[in-house]
């Protein structure tokens, strides 16, 4: 078995200022997914919107620059993730297809294993 992270990229506006009925439906879908995939789930979180993000980079002079906003500005932003356990990529993809992402899509990344 191996672990994969399913990164959820969606249009934030739809989640945070969209149609309340759609948002409610989306939230409900995540509750249902979490229940259905409980055996395979190893964790996951929803993130606050990118407006709450702070980016920190080295300034090249021994210090840091701290700026308001996400690392990369994109229309569909990282809004949450799940950690899942799967035997192989085919199983991980099958599981990722069931992750709700009504306002975007998801990316599957294998977790790095050391030693």
């Amino acid at each position: 078995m191996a672990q994969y992270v399913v990164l959820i990229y969606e249009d934030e506006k739809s989640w945070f200022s969209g149609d309340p009925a759609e948002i409610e439906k989306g939230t409900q879908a995540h509750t249902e997914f979490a229940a259905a995939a409980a055996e395979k789930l190893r964790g996951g979180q929803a993130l606050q919107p990118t407006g709450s993000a702070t980016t920190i980079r080295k300034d090249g002079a021994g210090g840091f620059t701290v700026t308001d906003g996400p690392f990369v500005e994109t229309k569909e932003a990282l809004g949450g993730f799940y950690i899942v356990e799967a035997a192989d990529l085919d199983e991980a993809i099958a599981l990722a297809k069931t992750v709700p992402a009504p306002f975007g899509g998801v990316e599957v990344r294998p977790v790095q294993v050391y030693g």
Partner: protein
Amino acid sequence: MSAAATAVAVAHRREWAFVLAATVRVTRDLDLAEECVQDAYAQALTAWAANGVPAKPGAWLTTVARRRALDLVRREATLRRALPLLVEDEAAPPSAEHDRFPDDRLRLICTCCHPALAAEAQVALTLRLVCGLTTAEVARAFLVSEPTMAARITRAKKKIAAARIPYRVPHPDELPARIEGVLAVVHLLFTTGHTAPVGADLVRRDLVERALDLARMVRTLLPDDADVGALLALILLTDARRATRVGADGRLLLLSEQDRARWDRAAIEEGLALVRQALTRRPPGRYVLEAAIAAVHAEAPAWAATDWEEVVGLYDLLVQVWPSPVVALNRAVAVGLAHGPAAGLSALDALAAEPQLAGYAYLPAARADFLRRLGRADEARTAYEEAVLLTENDVERAFLADRLARLGG
């Protein structure tokens, strides 16, 4: 070439995928399996020269390659624990392994054509691992440098290991979609070879041959799949015209100008039988319809005797299952041949705003032909000039320039 060397070359062409696919089962590592298989072919050169060519060269090579693989795997067992290995279906009982040998090629080809790999990587891996081409040969096939191709193949192999793309025949639910992916790779290889997108030669014989080999292999593995049979038919029927597509002077010859007596009858007969069989499945898929269109041409004794109504009818079905602007363009051309150049032109003009056809040389080339036949020489000239600018194949460009010259000034 000695008899043994010839036999090794033939076995390389015919058995590579079989031998490699079985060896990967032992190594669960593509690179190591490739090394073992190359070793086996090298040993065959001397062993077959000394002892004669074995009755079953593929089985001989598989035994030698797998023995070598077992040896290396045992010796390196401790070291290899740290390496990411290919994921396999471990549930299968080892005793059944021998019976499933033929299926290992399906594992190999499904791994190479996995949708999580980029399309160009799928084609490269298939040529490298399934067809046994060297990296240099694969690079030549796609007109990129050898280091570029080596990097592309290495990256794809790394992803297979790191993301755990499994080495197994896909689950029955997934199999149709995965076979579609395999057929797309074979089809791309064929079309790339049939009309080389760039360069001096119209046809890349090597690529066409490989596509045909692959289509035959997949057909052997999945004899009941209508789409598989149809793709093989499409390749056979289209490639049957190879000897007549270019004139003695290197000029491109249209279907209407080709000497049909020189078409490959054996390939046509084989293709027609496959099309008939594939057409019994309803509804017909993309390759079935494309092959059926190729069959109409193959069966017409002369260009003038082509059943254009039938061709238009098949294109009408094809645009439904495969709504591509290029298919719509071919349909428009068929409409013109069935109902006259004015009808063809209006069908073509309906596609003028299609963004995917912007920059596609066949659209102005087809317009130019209908305009010429309608006696609208000035407009035809403009359209031919546009087509000449857009094509990057030298043989096609020469053809268009010749048409343009014939229109006069």
